[in-house]
């Protein structure tokens, strides 16, 4: 126990902050207080350096050149894949498919596994908490094939209704789509249990891990997830790169989606044979710099220790929840017992747009709106919320600035 606390006190938020150049800037003349981390997080110097270093020292196309630069680039890109494999505890590095992000990864699953395995009347269970990116691709498939979409409902606190889930699983379910952590409410879903229950009825599980990976330890084998998607830009990496993890067996069974260079074994004019994993799903020149820099982002997270990040953000959330408890008419959306560093709320008599605009004047960046989860907002009967979300570099002082700025904004508005 004692050792543990020693380790946690070794987390020095000042030292972490110092690695993020953007945190030095001012917004509207005020110090930036960046609390829109669920949308995207800021980048540490080592990730920015990885990008510039690649372009300044060994930019080359990968997997196809014999020259030194091509080999260096290929090696760095494939090392990044291995770092990601290790970080999420995948069994093989070829189970890590580079994509453009979470949205792209989910679309890959829909286009390949979905289109080949699902047919008319098959049920896809989707949680009520999903981001549009884990909903709309399945709408497309519904239009094309007539699959049946059922929604796993939530309790008022934003946690999933597991009894309803158990019932829904009786309906010829082939696929369950659920996020690990909700971006709109912060609920942490019981993924391991859900995957287990899905497997018992022969369904597979697609986990949207966009909000989980930046904030908590993820072990895809322990979860027994069939697919697990995330975005680089939410885990301190660059935009335009993300990952689809898939179990080897499933990935091997799936047809390719995009055709082109890299993904082929041999091509003739009338037909081609396809490359092995992971290349089968990586047609064309990929985002090489992005992949390499995502590897650095994983190094960054590991250098701090994801358990320290989790602990730190939980403490910030706790503190923010306490410090806003006295604010009249403030209602938190998402009060599940297990919650990540997301504080989604509304204040009686005010509109999120107004609050967000005034907070911005005070240098505080939050998100307002429906958070790409319109059906969920409709469920609560609200147009959207104001959302403050934490990253590893946020501080208790920033929580105080936020609370103070919020009080000022409310005073102007009410």
């Amino acid at each position: 126990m004692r050792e543990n606390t020693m380790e946690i006190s070794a987390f020095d938020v000042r030292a972490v902050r110092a690695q993020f150049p953007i945190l030095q800037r001012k917004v509207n003349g005020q110090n930036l207080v960046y609390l829109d981390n669920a949308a995207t997080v800021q980048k540490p110097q080592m990730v920015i350096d990885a990008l510039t270093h690649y372009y300044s020292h060994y930019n080359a196309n990968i997997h196809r050149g014999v020259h030194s630069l091509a080999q260096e680039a290929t090696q760095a890109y494939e090392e990044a894949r291995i770092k990601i494999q290790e970080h999420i505890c995948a069994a093989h590095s070829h189970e890590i498919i580079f994509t453009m992000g979470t949205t792209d990864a989910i679309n890959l699953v829909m286009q390949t596994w979905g289109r080949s395995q699902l047919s008319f009347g098959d049920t896809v269970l989707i949680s009520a908490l999903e981001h549009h990116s884990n909903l709309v691709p399945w709408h497309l498939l519904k239009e094309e094939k007539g699959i049946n979409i059922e929604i796993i409902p939530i309790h008022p606190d934003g946690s999933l209704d597991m009894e309803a889930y158990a019932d829904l699983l009786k309906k010829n379910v082939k696929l369950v789509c659920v996020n690990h952590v909700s971006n709109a409410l912060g609920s942490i879903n019981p993924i391991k249990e859900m995957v287990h229950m899905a497997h018992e009825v022969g369904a597979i599980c697609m986990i949207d891990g966009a909000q989980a990976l930046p904030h908590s330890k993820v072990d895809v084998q322990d979860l027994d997830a069939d697919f697990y998607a995330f975005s680089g830009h939410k885990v301190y990496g660059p935009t335009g790169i993300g990952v689809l993890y898939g179990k080897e067996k499933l990935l091997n069974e799936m047809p390719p989606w995009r055709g082109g260079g890299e993904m082929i074994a041999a091509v003739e004019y009338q037909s081609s044979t396809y490359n092995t994993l992971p290349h089968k799903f990586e047609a064309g020149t990929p985002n090489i710099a992005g992949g390499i820099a995502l590897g650095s982002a994983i190094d960054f997270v590991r250098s701090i220790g994801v358990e320290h990040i989790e602990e730190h953000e939980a403490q910030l959330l706790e503190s923010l929840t306490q410090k806003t408890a006295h604010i009249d008419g403030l209602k938190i959306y998402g009060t599940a017992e297990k919650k990540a560093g997301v504080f989604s709320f509304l204040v009686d008599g005010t509109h999120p747009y107004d609050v967000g605009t005034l907070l911005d004047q005070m240098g505080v960046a939050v998100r307002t709106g429906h958070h790409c989860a319109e059906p969920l907002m409709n469920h609560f009967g609200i147009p959207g919320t104001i959302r403050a979300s934490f990253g590893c570099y946020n501080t208790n002082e920033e929580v105080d600035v936020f609370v103070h700025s919020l009080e000022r904004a409310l005073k102007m508005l009410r």
Partner: protein
Amino acid sequence: MESLAERKAEILDEFMMFDDWMQKYEHIIELGKELPLIEEQFKTEDHLIKGCQSRVWLHASEGDQGKVHFTADSDAIITKGLIALMIRYLGDLPAKDVASAEMDFIQEIGLQDHLSPTRSNGLVSMVKQMKLYGMALAAKQL
């Protein structure tokens, strides 16, 4: 009747008085509170301009001497304050003046961010609609 140039000068003068953002926004909020409301019967889907951040309802009609009369509302008070400014600037003018009006005063009072399409608060579309209405009415009056 005041010309557009006079209206603009008046608004600029008013905003010159503010030393900081707080006073400016307090004023906008005040304007929002004073905005004469759109009649309930016009607060319908066809009068709704959807932004994903805030919603705006706009109703335009032909008033006295062929001038354009606007009423509007929004669910967000800052948006409403900005609407009040637009209506003060464009409202009850001859249709052709509405159609050809420059909106550069918004820039000059430092509120252009609210009129950026990326802001998605419905204001850009509202101004477009106001001008379209002016254009249509001007064409009819020829």
